[in-house]
């Protein structure tokens, strides 16, 4: 009796470091769950498929793996391109897809996207939270009036995603938003940072991905821009982004949906998984690193959804994708549950519903000390959720008309 979870992972190519950390974390947690006897006795079985972060190969992996071993319980490709490629398919196949902190922000609307779960937080909420945080640094969002904020972004769907939110917030709070794109892959940014140097902004939002982040920090340093004033997106806030930048990264702040630190669950993983020789990471030192913790977080939410589904559809049974979907839609991982899992405070409490597939929208800000990340906001930060909700409704409605979907909650 095994619950099957396919992992369309990527461990080669430019984003390999992220892929190996994330999927490594997830697998470590699976191993821990299995070592503890599974989910009510149901063990987790997983299988990996190399996608190389490539949409077409990702789709193939998904299609190949989805029906194996009695059918996939869920899927998470950790790639926006692949997520788009299988967006329609998951609904047809009735397999829930989670996209933690990436993918379509408007998929939080469960009426239009019943099978997609941008759990914890989406790009739009992140952008809103960024503005809120920057406001709080100045003593309130109103104080942002007249400030200059640069949105330095990866020139792609990813980097453009938050713009509606940032534009709206800029209009609302009266700060000046300067958008500066960086062409993929972003390994040269002198001109952008010279523009920034000339504009003399108060803050730079770094909406980067891959090599672009380290280069941004390096280039900021060589142009004398203080890193404390750079606020990165969570895909720009891992060790992989700061270590190559060396000293240039010191003081740099980013958003995150994990609180850096150590947790009992990580100790458990060290003890029960790594000491038993089943750890997935080559380098034990990466346990608890940003990507790893994100993988653990994802795996916790996945298993919690399965557990939730079992509560409704039968404990100790293998759940179908449809049943797991229900679990995802009725998640409630509050402080108490987190504590029981040994992950209190590791990520914000998550409570989902049909209307809200995101379940939280809260983030923290962390800072790089030169050797590790430390949280610098004691509490979870959220932005203007009314605004993001409005955008979400509009955007998902458009998708629904394009696709002829009648928005409704699944039973």
């Amino acid at each position, binding site marked *: 009796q095994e619950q099957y979870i396919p992992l369309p*992972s*990527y*461990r*080669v190519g430019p984003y390999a470091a992220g892929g*190996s950390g994330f*999927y490594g974390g997830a697998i470590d947690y699976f191993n821990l769950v299995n070592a503890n006897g599974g989910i009510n006795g149901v063990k987790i079985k997983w*299988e*990996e*498929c*190399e996608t190389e972060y*490539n*949409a*077409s*190969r990702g*789709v*193939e*992996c*998904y*299609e*190949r793996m*989805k*029906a194996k071993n009695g059918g996939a319980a869920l899927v998470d490709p950790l790639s*926006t*391109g692949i997520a*788009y*490629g299988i*967006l*329609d*398919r998951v609904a047809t196949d009735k397999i829930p897809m989670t996209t933690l902190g990436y993918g*379509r922000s408007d998929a939080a609307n469960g009426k239009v996207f019943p099978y997609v779960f941008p759990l914890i937080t989406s790009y739009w909420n992140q952008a809103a939270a960024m503005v809120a945080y920057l406001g709080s640094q100045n003593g309130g969002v109103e104080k942002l009036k007249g400030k200059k904020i640069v949105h330095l972004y990866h*020139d*792609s*769907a*990813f980097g*453009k*995603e938050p*713009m*509606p939110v940032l534009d709206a917030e800029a209009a609302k709070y009266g700060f000046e938003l300067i958008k500066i794109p960086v*062409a*993929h892959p972003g390994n040269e940014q002198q001109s952008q940072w010279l523009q920034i140097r000339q504009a003399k902004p108060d803050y730079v939002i770094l909406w980067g991905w891959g090599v672009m982040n380290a280069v941004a920090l390096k280039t900021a340093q060589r142009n004398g821009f203080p890193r404390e004033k750079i606020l990165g997106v969570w895909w720009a806030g891992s060790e992989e982004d700061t270590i190559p930048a060396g000293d240039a990264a010191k003081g740099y702040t980013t958003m995150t949906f994990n609180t850096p630190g150590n947790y009992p669950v990580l100790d458990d993983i060290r003890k029960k998984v790594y000491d038993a020789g089943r750890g*997935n990471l*080559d380098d034990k030192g990466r346990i608890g690193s940003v990507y790893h913790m994100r993988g653990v977080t994802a795996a916790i939410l996945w298993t919690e959804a399965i557990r939730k589904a079992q509560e409704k559809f039968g404990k100790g049974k293998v759940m179908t994708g449809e049943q797991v979907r229900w679990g995802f839609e009725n998640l409630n991982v509050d402080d108490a549950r987190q504590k029981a899992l040994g992950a209190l405070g590791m990520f914000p409490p998550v409570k989902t519903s049909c209307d809200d597939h995101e379940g939280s929208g809260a983030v923290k800000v962390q800072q790089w000390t030169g050797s590790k990340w430390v949280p610098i906001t004691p509490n979870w930060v959220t932005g203007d959720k009314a605004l993001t909700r409005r*955008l979400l409704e509009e*955007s998902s409605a*458009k*998708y629904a008309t*394009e*696709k*002829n979907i009648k928005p409704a909650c699944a039973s």
Partner: protein
Amino acid sequence: MFYREAGQFKITYQADSQIFPIRQDRIGVALLLAVAFLVVPFVASPYVFSAVLIPFLIFALAALGLNILTGYAGQLSLGTAAFMAVGAFASYNFILRVPGIPVLLAFVLGGLCAAMVGIVFGLPSLRIRGFYLAAATLATQFFVVWCLTKISWFTNNSSSGVITAQKIVILGYEFDTPVSKYLLTLCIVCVMAVLLKNMIRTNVGRSWMAVRDMDVAAEVIGFRPMRTKLLAFAVSSFYCGVAGALYAFAYLGTVEPEAYSLDLSFRILFMIIIGGVGSIIGAFFGSAFIVLLPIVLNIVAHSLALPTSVASNLELMVFGALIIFFLIVEPHGLARLWQIAKEKLRLWPFPH
């Protein structure tokens, strides 16, 4: 023994210029088509359709397109994905903005848009050749994708630049299952392959090949290089455009402009080189090779129970090594191997 043309005489030139002059080939192709149309739809699994066959056919179509340009007209191009993107986004916009337009017409119009872009970016080919041209076609690649990301009108003002392909409805029938999408793609690919074959065996094709083989001589005997090259760019881009539209509509469904990245251009280029430059069947061989090989390697690597990171890297290495291996064995691609096999078969059982 069974593969002999002895005893098959052509009495008319018409018979001699058939697509498959040898009877056994004709029978083989008819059988293949029968299987593809009549047997496969009933036996293959949805996985095979939507993750193997559909992309195989679409890539093969794109490879045919690139083959027109690179294989037949001799213009090396690295901008295939850009033309595919134009086809996809144009078709999307036609369906979006022209109510009631038939989907197939939208594909054709999308292809024509791609053809126009192709002509514009083909203009430099009149002066530039070889790797210089190849590197210059990268301009197309980056510029087109940049335009699609920047000009939000193309993506119907979607905030992130992602489009969601509309449903394919033809004459009231909705192509929404993998099988139906497969059959649609198969039809389009077959028709376009036949059209291409016709072009190749008539004057257009000869003009392309002439320009490829020796452009000065081609000019001297009366081909106009400019016309010929631009026509090759246009037709090639048309094929790529239609392939790009199918990529969005019949395969991925929801795409961002980056789905048509340089990577994709390279994959298509691999296909024609592995398959055989300047060969129609080669495009199919190449596409099959590039689509299937990673899958096979992935399955093999994972069944060996290697640690995943090792498996993934080995996969990549073996893939690279196999490309090199095939090139060494036969620089003219799988199509040439196929031909040699046939020639051997014809001589069989005598070695020479």
